[in-house]
């Protein structure tokens, strides 16, 4: 009896002998593209990558992926202006994925579960000094420590955190969260010296025999403007106003507070003033709402708390209990011009939030440092004109945000590491951007964004409780699963399914797929039907 499968009688050859791959003129190739969120993240996070783990509910793996780039997820999930979400392709379908909500959830989870990272590298024997313990300095210290270097942070203030502590109010960033993430960084063996102002960098470098220095001094000096004022007028600068509501006696602000300026600090000052008892806070800004440098989200939240805004106005003088403002108009170039029209506003206190400068006294005497427009110039490796001294954050030319500082810290840490070995840090070429037109969105079902529960507006005005609530485990999972995984395979099996020639090999969980070029005829159906655009056709080599 012949050994044949059921009901098979004839000896036949299989068509597997016919290698149809020879028909092909183009071949499909799997690629990874740069998701727009990753492309937009100033801290260089692999957002799509950590969301992939969060989608499975493996929050620890997601957090570990996250902190490879950013050691402050609980903080960033709260205070970052999330350019990732602005770039998110899903916004073109319904609404952007609430990345910051998931990031914050992961950061909070790590704190409550006690997840921590460890240094795997052997000690390099090199000593690096980081000046400043704001987000930039902390990020640099963290990455330098992971690279095996002995790191010391000098901080002038009595507590670490820089602007995260003395500039960002508690209702946006609770201090227990700040303390927990700073402590986790310091537990990597980093020495933190508080109340250690640096008078002369070169001297400190020699005294402590440091091999390299990273300057992250921030921008701590409030810009001033000359405003004629009566002697009895109460004028404060925004930074000291915010800092003094952090430690010590909260300032007495009176009933009506006018904040002068249109940036994030102005918004924070107005919201803080209301929490300190002011019945009315008014923001006076010389241009229009659209031109305000404050992030739209912050403007929105500030208005929602009942803060009034007077656009196109400058303060001409401050008198006892009131201010005189002049109306402005925009000229053709969009610059505000005076109109000669004046108005009076009641004001018990005026808070000036007109921008910040860096105190450069620690490097003022050094001939090889170049300061232009109030900021320190650095090269592509974040190194100053002085070999071995690097700088980043608010004191170098860039937009001033926590996340940009964190990105600077990471980049500088890798540059310092390379410099200590006498090399230059090699940057990896970026993948091509995963644009919306490369997605096949038919496969994505509709899902509305999880709205973070917000405290009642009235409650916000009276307390320093956190304004925006966090996600819970199940809605964080839901939010993570809204990710489209742009440009990166997430193993949906579409290519494996739609190939009419069985020429896609499924390699198993986490291993993705490969093409069997013996049989692939190059029809390109897998490319068209890949939801996330992770396959391209390339001309066959002849």
């Amino acid at each position: 009896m012949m050994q044949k499968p059921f009901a098979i009688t004839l000896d036949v050859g299989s068509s597997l002998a016919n290698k149809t791959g020879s028909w092909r003129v183009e071949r499909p190739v799997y690629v990874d593209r740069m998701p727009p969120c990753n492309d937009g993240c100033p801290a260089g996070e692999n957002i799509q990558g950590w969301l992939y783990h969060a989608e499975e509910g493996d929050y620890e793996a997601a957090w570990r992926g996250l902190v490879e780039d950013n050691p402050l997820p609980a903080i960033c999930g709260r205070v970052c202006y999330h350019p990732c979400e602005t770039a998110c392709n899903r916004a073109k379908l319904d609404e952007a994925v609430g990345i910051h909500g998931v990031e914050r959830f992961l950061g909070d989870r790590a704190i409550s579960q006690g997840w921590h990272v460890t240094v795997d590298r052997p000690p390099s024997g090199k000593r690096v000094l980081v000046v400043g313990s704001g987000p930039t300095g902390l990020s640099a210290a963290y990455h330098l420590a992971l690279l095996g270097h002995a790191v010391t942070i000098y901080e002038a203030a009595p507590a670490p955190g820089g602007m995260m502590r003395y500039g960002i109010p508690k209702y946006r960033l609770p201090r227990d969260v700040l303390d927990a993430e700073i402590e986790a960084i310091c537990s990597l063996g980093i020495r933190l010296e508080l109340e250690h102002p640096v008078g002369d960098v070169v001297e400190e470098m020699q005294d402590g025999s440091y091999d390299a220095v990273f300057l992250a001094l921030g921008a701590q000096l409030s810009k001033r403007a000359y405003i004629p004022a009566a002697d009895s007028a109460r004028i404060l600068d925004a930074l000291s106003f915010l800092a003094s509501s952090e430690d010590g006696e909260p300032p007495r602000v009176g009933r009506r507070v006018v904040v002068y300026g249109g940036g994030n600090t102005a918004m924070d000052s107005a919201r803080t003033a209301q929490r300190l008892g002011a019945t009315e806070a008014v923001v006076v800004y010389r241009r229009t709402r659209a031109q305000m440098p404050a992030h739209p989200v912050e403007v929105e939240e500030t208005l929602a708390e009942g803060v009034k805004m007077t656009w196109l106005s400058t303060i001409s003088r401050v008198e006892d209990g009131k201010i005189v403002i002049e109306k402005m108009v925009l000229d053709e170039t969009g610059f505000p011009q005076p109109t000669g029209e004046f108005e009076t506003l009641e004001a018990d206190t005026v808070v000036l939030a007109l921008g910040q400068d860096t105190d450069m006294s620690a490097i003022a005497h050094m001939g090889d440092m170049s300061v232009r427009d109030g900021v320190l110039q650095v090269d592509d490796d974040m190194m100053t004109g002085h070999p071995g001294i690097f700088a980043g954050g608010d004191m170098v030319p860039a937009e001033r945000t926590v996340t940009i500082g964190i990105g600077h810290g990471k980049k500088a840490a890798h540059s310092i590491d390379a410099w200590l070995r006498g090399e230059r840090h090699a940057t990896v070429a970026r993948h091509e951007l995963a644009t919306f037109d490369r997605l096949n969105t038919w496969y994505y079902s509709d899902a509305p964004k999880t709205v973070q529960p917000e405290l009642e507006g009235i409650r916000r005005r009276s307390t320093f409780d956190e304004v925006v609530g966090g996600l819970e485990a199940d809605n964080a999972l839901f939010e993570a699963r809204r990710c489209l995984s742009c440009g990166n395979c997430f193993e949906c099996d579409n290519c494996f399914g739609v190939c009419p020639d069985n020429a896609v090999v499924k390699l198993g969980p986490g291993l993705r797929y490969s093409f069997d070029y013996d049989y692939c005829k190059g029809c390109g159906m897998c490319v068209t039907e890949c939801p996330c655009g992770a396959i391209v056709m390339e001309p066959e080599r002849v």
Partner: protein
Amino acid sequence: MDDQQVKFYQVGSFAVGNRLLDGGKHTVQADRARSNSLTSGHRACQGCGEALGARYALDAAMRATEGRLIAANATGCLEVFSTPYPETSWQIPWLHSLFGNAPAIATGMAAALKVKGRSDIRVVSQAGDGGTVDIGFGCLSGMFERNDDVLFICYDNEAYMNTGVQRSGATPPAARTATTEAVGAEPGNVFGQGKNMPLLAVAHEIPYVATATVAELHDLERKVEKAMSFRGARYIHILVPCPLGWGSATSDTVRLARLACETGVFPLFEAENGEITATSKIRHQVPVEEYLRPQGRYKHLFTPTPRPEILKKIQQLADRNIARFGLLAGSDEAELVGAEGS
């Protein structure tokens, strides 16, 4: 994992697989151990919808019958490209019939199995649209009438593709084929002719009739599985775009099948014992032009002179399907076909 969470996952339940679902909810095609009833090395054109549809349907039938399946296959593309002597691409017991008698051959197989008391072994008969709606129609109607225990699957690519794209009774109006050239005042296939085979099958009042496409894998597999749960004559009509005959890009096969549904050109429905029992709703409705424009067989509707009046007539046919089968969400009060004949 509850349904709500699955629904909101990146690709919901529309993609072939989903790494977050447990195995029982995967499609057959997502399984590495799928039977690959039609395996590699076959000689179908690049991007062949029929090769894809046949594997989808037979793999699902193989799972439903735990591998106890015999197929009869009419002459046509599917037969020609899968079995040039001495090779075969079939990994199931498979028999080639004449062009017109695949239903009768299957009837014989079912009768023989009955005599042998092998009710566990099931029979599938398959053909293209020519072998079904034209040449094999008499045998098929007989098989339906006798209610033989056979699942008949028609892979509809809307013309005789194997012999060089001649018109069949399933060719849609205005389409260019080798026998309906794009010339004259009414170019392409004429309006008002041809047969609606799925509705003819419904009219036979057989236990189960369904339509499907290669763009809706979950739907297709569910219908095949459901068909195998019935005894008696069953009919599934699968739309399988043909890059060669339709003049479309080889990469667009699944996309065109999807557009055929989303325009209303090809309604997806199920019927049991002569009554329509379910229709699939359109997710994102689009005008027929989006479906027609990528196809070379409709090129004469756009160049050199645009023919909006013909597009309008095709749109009217699609709109009629939408109303007739209730294809839009919320339109459950559709004017169902079963009622029409009574």
